[in-house]
């Protein structure tokens, strides 16, 4: 029997799919009948290809009114038939899209049927026209429970004005849920009659009082939109009274301001004046958007009368308004004793001020109060105007105290004041070390390609080690940002020749970061030279090189140099470069790792090799690390590498992986690694799982 049902279901699906391919709203009647007959028995859990075919026709029916009508008729007939409940639910969903007045009776017949009422509304609520309105109104008296609430909801969503009276009766009925639904529906219908009805019931109702209040608020908005200002004002004033809940008062305030606009300013200050008014921060927010040309001045006039907390809120709002009429207030308040007011004033000054206010803000960038300091710095960073950067530079030159100078220079850097570069270069030459360091940092951020020679010159002229380091950092910063590394190298090499030894060392380090092939001959010469400092810098630069180009050079240093530090540096650079070869030349990488493992005497570098070779997923890698199992100090790293390589090659080289994993289980005492090895072994083909002799 089960097999028979399965077969029937499959046949059903096949036929439906065949129909789907040909489905269109103007399908011939015989095929439509066959398709609808199929879906009439639809149950949840079955294939819905037949339903999909019908739904596709429904969606396509837009362009073919005649076929659409015919299709609707067929769906109506199906809804009125003995089709399954699931099929009828599907039909209602389709009528949601194409149902018309002709579908109303059959849908209306389901409004009191608990099984189908909701899905019938799903269609009926959307169908335009008075027929559907009437169907809901007719069904209302006879419905009960959830069906009735659904009808009420639909009347509201359709905004059926004729339903005001029957819904009004429900407001005073014994059933609170019906009353609630009626209030919500009436709120959507809106209009003067609804407002009067709600007002009338507000004085009587108890349980639904809050709902009535919430429903009157959108009604007031509706009055506002229709230009009935007095009626709207009356509702808002009524709910603005202190005895109403805060959200209702907030809504009323918003409504009143929409009517009164700038004339409502007194209301906002009335709230702001009252320390305990819960609407205070909302009132301050309204100040941000209060319209009218004189609004800012009006706010400013009232501002001094406020207590300090309100003053801070209002200053923040004035800053956001962006009207310079508030500038004098912000300027006067930056020195306020209350920290919140002062911080708000500094922020506002940053939004409203310009070049003229740089000196004032500069007075606060070193303030003992961290919040004021940060606010002043942020304000300097955000000041607008083409002359602001010049004003900041003038201020830097006019100030004597270093912390202020440093804050101003940082501001130029944050403002991306590239035009200030020449002035800052000059400043760097004549500043004390701390300021010089800050200037160099700013120069590094601001410099463009054309500034390369100037930065190299700055490095060359550095008067102290700290200054030289800052200039070197600035040069690295610029070179890292530039795409053309050869140009960077050429500029640096041009400065390299005439420079004294310490500067040459710095330039060699920078060249190591840049990595242009043009620079390699100079580095090779430098490392073979007689000056130990330059030699050291060159070897470090080669070891840091961003690509594997100097790997042979490093191998030769590692093998030949007498200095142990240089040997270590060279081996580390060489092993790092082997890792860079893995993707493109894995055999070359393997050879490099082998050389390093064989020749480097120290455990630390051998461990680096193991860590690197672990990323080389080849059986040869396992062979390479094989000797390391015998060295007790290298067993942990060898085990990690073996596990990683084995996991990566297990599918392609199961035997090699198996051998390495068995070795790991035998030698390593790390339980976690042993468990992981065991897990990989279990996934290997049975022939490869056993240990190989």
């Amino acid at each position: 029997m089960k097999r028979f049902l399965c077969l029937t279901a499959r046949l059903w699906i096949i036929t439906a799919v065949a129909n789907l391919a040909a489905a269109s709203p103007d399908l011939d009647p015989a095929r439509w009948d066959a398709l609808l007959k199929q879906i009439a028995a639809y149950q949840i859990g079955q294939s819905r290809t037949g339903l999909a075919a019908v739904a596709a026709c429904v969606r396509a029916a837009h362009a073919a009114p005649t076929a659409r009508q015919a299709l609707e008729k067929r769906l109506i007939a199906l809804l009125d038939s003995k089709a399954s409940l699931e099929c009828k639910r599907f039909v209602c969903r389709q009528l949601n899209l194409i149902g018309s007045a002709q579908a109303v009776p059959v849908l209306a017949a389901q409004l009191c049927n608990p099984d189908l009422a909701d899905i019938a509304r799903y269609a009926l609520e959307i169908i335009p026209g008075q027929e559907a309105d009437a169907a809901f109104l007719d069904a209302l008296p006879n419905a009960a429970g959830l069906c009735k609430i659904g009808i009420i909801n639909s009347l509201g969503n359709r905004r059926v004005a004729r339903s005001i009276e029957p819904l009004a009766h429900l407001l005073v009925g014994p059933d609170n849920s019906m009353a609630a639904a009626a209030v919500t529906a009436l709120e959507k219908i809106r209009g003067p009659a609804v407002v009067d009805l709600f007002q009338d019931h507000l004085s009587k109702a108890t349980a639904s009082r809050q709902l009535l209040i919430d429903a009157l608020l959108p009604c007031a908005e509706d009055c506002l939109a229709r230009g009935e200002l007095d009626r709207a004002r009356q509702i808002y004033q009524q709910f603005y009274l202190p005895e109403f809940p805060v959200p209702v008062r907030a809504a009323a305030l918003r409504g009143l301001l929409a009517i009164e606009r700038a004339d409502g300013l007194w209301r906002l200050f009335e709230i702001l004046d009252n320390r305990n008014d819960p609407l205070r921060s909302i009132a301050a927010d309204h100040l941000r958007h209060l319209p009218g040309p004189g609004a800012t001045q009006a706010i400013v006039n009232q501002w001094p009368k406020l207590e300090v907390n309100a003053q801070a809120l209002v200053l923040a709002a004035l800053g956001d308004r962006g009207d310079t009429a508030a500038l004098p207030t912000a300027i006067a308040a930056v020195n306020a004793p209350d920290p919140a007011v002062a911080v708000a004033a500094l922020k506002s000054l940053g939004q409203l001020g310009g070049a003229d206010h740089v000196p004032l803000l500069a007075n606060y960038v070193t303030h003992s109060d961290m919040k004021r300091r940060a606010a002043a710095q942020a304000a300097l960073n955000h000041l607008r105007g083409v002359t602001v950067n010049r004003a900041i530079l003038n201020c830097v030159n006019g100030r004597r105290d270093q912390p202020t100078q440093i804050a101003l220079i940082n501001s130029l850097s944050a403002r991306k004041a590239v035009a200030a570069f020449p002035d800052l270069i000059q400043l760097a030459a004549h500043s004390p070390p701390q300021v010089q360091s800050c200037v160099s940092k700013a120069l590094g951020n601001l410099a463009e390609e054309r500034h390369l020679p100037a930065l190299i010159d700055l490095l060359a002229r550095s008067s102290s080690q700290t200054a030289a380091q800052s200039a070197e950092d600035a040069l690295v910063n610029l070179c890292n940002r530039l795409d053309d590394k050869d140009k960077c190298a050429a500029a640096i090499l041009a400065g390299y020749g005439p420079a004294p030894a310490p500067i040459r060392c710095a330039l060699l380090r920078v060249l190591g970061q840049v990595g242009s092939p043009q620079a390699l001959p100079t580095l090779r010469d430098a490392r073979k030279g007689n000056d130990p400092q330059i030699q050291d810098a060159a070897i470090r630069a080669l070891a840091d090189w961003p690509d594997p180009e100097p790997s042979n050079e490093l191998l030769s240093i590692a093998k030949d140099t007498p200095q142990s530090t240089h040997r270590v540096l060279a081996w580390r650079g060489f092993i790092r470069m082997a890792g860079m070869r893995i993707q493109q030349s894995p055999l070359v990488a393997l050879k490099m790792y082998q050389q390093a493992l064989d020749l480097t005497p120290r455990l630390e570098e051998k461990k680096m090799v193991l860590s690197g070779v672990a990323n080389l997923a080849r059986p040869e890698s396992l062979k390479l690390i094989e000797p390391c199992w015998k060295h007790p100090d290298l067993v942990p790293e060898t085990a990690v590498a073996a596990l990683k390589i084995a996991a990566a090659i297990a599918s392609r080289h199961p035997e090699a992986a198996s051998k390495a994993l068995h070795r790991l289980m035998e030698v390593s005492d790390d339980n976690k690694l042993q468990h992981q090895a065991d897990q990989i072994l279990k996934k290997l083909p049975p022939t490869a799982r056993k240990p190989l002799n």
Partner: protein
Amino acid sequence: MKSNSKVYSRRAWLKRTAAGLSAAITAPMLIPEAARGQAGRPSPSNCLTMGMIGLGSMGMRNLLGFLQEKDCRITAVCDVDASRRQEALKAVNQCYGDPGCAQYNDFRELIDRPDIDLLCLCLPDHWHSIPAIMGARAGKDIYGEKPLALTIVEGRAMVEAVKRYSCLWQTGSWQRSTAHFRFACELVRNQRIGKLQQIEVGLGTGSRIPPQAAMPIPPGFDYDRWLGPAPWAPYTEKRCHWNFRWILDYSGGQLTDCGAHDIDIAHWGMDTENTGPIQVEGTGDYPDDGLWNAAVTYRFECRYDNGLTMRVGSDNFFATGIRFIGEKGWVYVNRAGLDTHPKCLLKEQVGPEEIHLYYSPPDRQGHRRNFLDCVKNRTPPASTIEVAHRSITVAHLGNIAMQLGRKIRWNPQAEQFIDDPTASRMLYRPQRSPWVF
């Protein structure tokens, strides 16, 4: 061990005052903002109380995030699945070291509590509008997960309620609080790629499964309430938790799920945050069989009245993320990072005279922090409800155009279709009784 927390049964939600009193008596009591200092609205120095509604994957992620914020205290959790509720309750009580958190099956009970300042709504899409509107009416400030709403009309109703009650709303579109997304949009807004010409948005691809038989409802799962306003359907596991997003009764598929993030960023860069397209056309592959019916692959094009064209598609059509294409180059951004042509744009800095977009602290946690800060300061948050509504409207329009299989014309000011009665029927969906937004 007897717990202080209590599961509340459904009761007449009309009795608001009585409900508040009841909750105040039976639930563990924290002193609300209303009773401290500036009543009703939080003062900067005080702790904000929060109720979490919806405790699935995003709900728990947000819960753990808000637990980290010292000036916010979660005092109630709500979900229709008892096991999820218990898990959340345990996390909250463990974090605070006391059994002070209450649990609810019915979100209305939680919203009715006058001692709760904030709501975090992390429900399936078909449950977004009703609790949001109720929450706004109750004077709560709300962190609401994306996508904003199931339909365009529901979204607009939410916007109106939030504005009406001066509710502070942050949408969970946290990409706005991510530095590289903001920088990408600043590059575009400041014309670093010249005049913007078109935008490509690549989103996730959907999935299919075979038809699913009805199953017994698991114990502790209030399935009828889970369905809520959606059309009735029998329980089957793959309909509900997490998978709801593949079914059009409850969501809009990957298009709305990912689109809420990436179309939002596209609008940010395009400077069309408060409007929408005027024409939408495209095709989608909606499964003909099986339980899930949201588009698996899809592609549609939106035209804006400023001449811009935004093409949205699943990631088989466009690379995941947003590509802004201008006269002189492009900016491509997704969660993995930012790329530009020319490359040097990556190192650009936006000057003080240029357009700076809204700054909020970084990433998901920063986005939550931004919400709390804005509640305290009463300043607009990173992702306002109007902007979120406009973003998700694009995804809804895409679904409507693709389902109808033809071009649709849209008036973004009136939020109405132009001369298209069939498309107009898809602006909202009647809800199952007794629910209505």
